């Protein structure tokens, strides 16, 4: 029995068991609230009204001041109009649109693709951006993208591969130059301080479309999948396609992660084999070798130690101590490798390279590959939702949306847990000259 079957049965059982409304309850009058109670219940509205009144007065006063200033500046021949409608689009791979007010503070953030949903499905993070200045918001979003694995932290940049952030600011009137340069400088210095090579560039453009962009972003749901679901008017086919894409994105993450873990164990095993083959090692391992090591064993142990540190950081498997207990823990954690054939791993590596989609993952022709995939990633939770979506079992828009929401949340959580640790590791900061060389390497000098 599947989880969804159990939930369906549970809901059916509850539908039958839930008591109908009793006649007494139906006829029980609803006491109308007294004036004081109404005041209390709606007090937050009043507070809002009061705030609005206050802001109304404040706005009127400010308008007078501004009108006076404008008249004065006009009289002085220095009349300029500040932009009213501003959007800032960040493209990393997660793409987001940020609506800014006329002071360049964030009013709202919406995601423009599924990857951005993994950032913004954390509501606390999403709401923390509101009110922030564009510069700080751009840095916070880029930082979160780095903590969620959207930058290669080890990449030092070549003409073909480099970390990049493109920020496009659109406004209905020309903006002061320092806004764009401020965002660019802040992003660059943020990553340089953390020792991560990232090319950040900001484009600004005055356009009549800015007002429409602001209106569209302000009206729509924050998350991309909710927006698509609404814009397609809950068309089930479109929703199902979106759900499948969500499955594939998460499936690719899980596969890359599982292969990385598999290889990490493989590298440790290979190094241990070299220790065992050394005349002084005599069948021993990193955990069982004594203190008097020759240089070869000492270097091998040092390499294993670094890999075990990574194993601990990424997967929480702590086998770093040089004792029998750690050895046993390591054997238990890596034993699954023996159950997976080389043929299976080769086909999954190929899948990892080509990417997961309908053609490479679905249909009867890929059944063996799917089975191998689920065996390697060993994630029942994902397998169930993925199977339910890919086989079209999830019926109804609400259920599909729920599945998408779950997958998005879990993906965000998985990525954040893994990559935020790597992001927080100490790195030497990048000097101005090193950054200039990086720009030359990537052809942006």
């Amino acid at each position, binding site marked *: 029995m599947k989880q969804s079957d*159990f939930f369906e049965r549970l809901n059916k059982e*509850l539908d039958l068991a839930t008591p109908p409304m009793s006649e007494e309850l139906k006829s*029980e*009058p609803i006491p109308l*609230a007294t004036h004081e109670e*109404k005041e209390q219940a*709606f007090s937050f509205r009043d507070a809002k009204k009061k705030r609005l009144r206050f802001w109304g007065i404040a706005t009127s006063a400010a308008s007078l001041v501004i009108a006076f200033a404008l008249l004065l500046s006009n009289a002085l021949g220095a009349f300029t109009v500040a932009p009213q409608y501003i959007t800032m689009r960040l493209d990393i791979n997660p793409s987001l649109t940020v609506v800014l007010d006329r002071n360049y503070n964030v009013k709202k953030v919406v995601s423009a693709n599924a990857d951005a949903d993994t950032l913004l499905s954390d*509501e606390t993070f999403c709401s923390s951006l509101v009110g922030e200045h564009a510069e700080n918001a751009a840095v916070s979003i880029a930082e979160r993208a780095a903590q969620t694995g959207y930058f290669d932290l080890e990449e030092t940049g070549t003409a073909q591969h480099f970390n990049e952030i493109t920020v496009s600011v659109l406004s209905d009137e020309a903006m002061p130059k320092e806004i764009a340069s401020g965002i660019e400088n802040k992003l660059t210095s943020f990553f340089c301080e953390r020792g991560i090579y990232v090319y950040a560039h900001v484009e600004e453009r005055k356009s009549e479309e800015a007002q429409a962009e602001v209106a569209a972003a302000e009206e729509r749901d924050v998350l991309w999948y909710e927006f698509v679901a609404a814009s397609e008017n809950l068309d089930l086919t479109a929703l199902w396609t979106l759900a499948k894409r969500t499955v594939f994105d998460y499936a690719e993450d899980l596969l890359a992660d599982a292969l990385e873990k598999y290889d990490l164990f493989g590298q440790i095993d290979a190094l241990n084999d070299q220790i065992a083959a050394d005349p002084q090692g005599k069948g021993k391992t990193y955990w069982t070798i004594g203190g008097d090591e020759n240089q070869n064993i000492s270097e091998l142990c040092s390499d294993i130690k670094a890999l075990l540190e990574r194993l601990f950081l990424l997967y929480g498997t702590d086998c770093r101590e040089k004792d029998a207990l750690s050895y046993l823990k390591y054997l238990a954690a890596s034993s699954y490798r023996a159950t997976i054939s080389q043929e299976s791993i080769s086909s999954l590596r190929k899948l990892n390279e080509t990417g997961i989609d309908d053609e490479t993952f679905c249909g009867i022709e890929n059944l063996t590959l799917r089975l191998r995939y689920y065996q390697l990633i060993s994630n029942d939770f994902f397998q169930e939702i993925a199977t339910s979506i890919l086989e079209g079992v999830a019926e109804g828009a609400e259920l599909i949306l729920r599945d998408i929401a779950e997958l998005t*949340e879990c993906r965000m959580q998985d990525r954040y847990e893994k990559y935020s640790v790597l992001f927080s590791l100490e790195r030497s900061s990048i000097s101005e000259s090193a950054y200039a060389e990086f720009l030359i390497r990537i052809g942006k000098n």
Partner: protein
Amino acid sequence: MQNLQKRKLDALMKRVIEGDNDAFCLLYEATAKGIFAFAYSYLGKREDAEDVTQETFFAAKRKAHLYRPGTDVRAWLFQIAKNLSLDELRKKKNSAAPLGDALENTLSVKPQLTELDALTACLDEAEREIVLLHAVWQYKHREIAELTGTPLGTVTWKYKKALAKLRDYLKEDL
């Protein structure tokens, strides 16, 4: 969708505050199942859960004016139901069941609630709450985290753990 549901229920509740009994009936239809499931998971007895369900809605009618429009009606009802269930449990703990009640229980003709009993039998209170909020009330994990004041990671982890426990309990491939 969740927001849509939240907004719809909030709109109904605003009508209830103004004295609209039809809106109250619609609110009952939309939420009674979840309330009943909760009460049952606490009390473990169908009749008691039915009573608490009715009592919850009596209380909702009487206290309608205390509801703050714009908030989550489901969370508000859920809190009332939880308080009433805990009161009922305390009452039961303080007074031993009379012989008549025991006999009545034995003779109860209402069929058992197999799936709900499975949840009650194998999950602890927090796990049950998360599974019911998710499966019956259609809350997302993020919303459960907000509602219960628990970190999102803990909710997801407990949910997965609860499913594993259910799988073991049912001894099937859940």
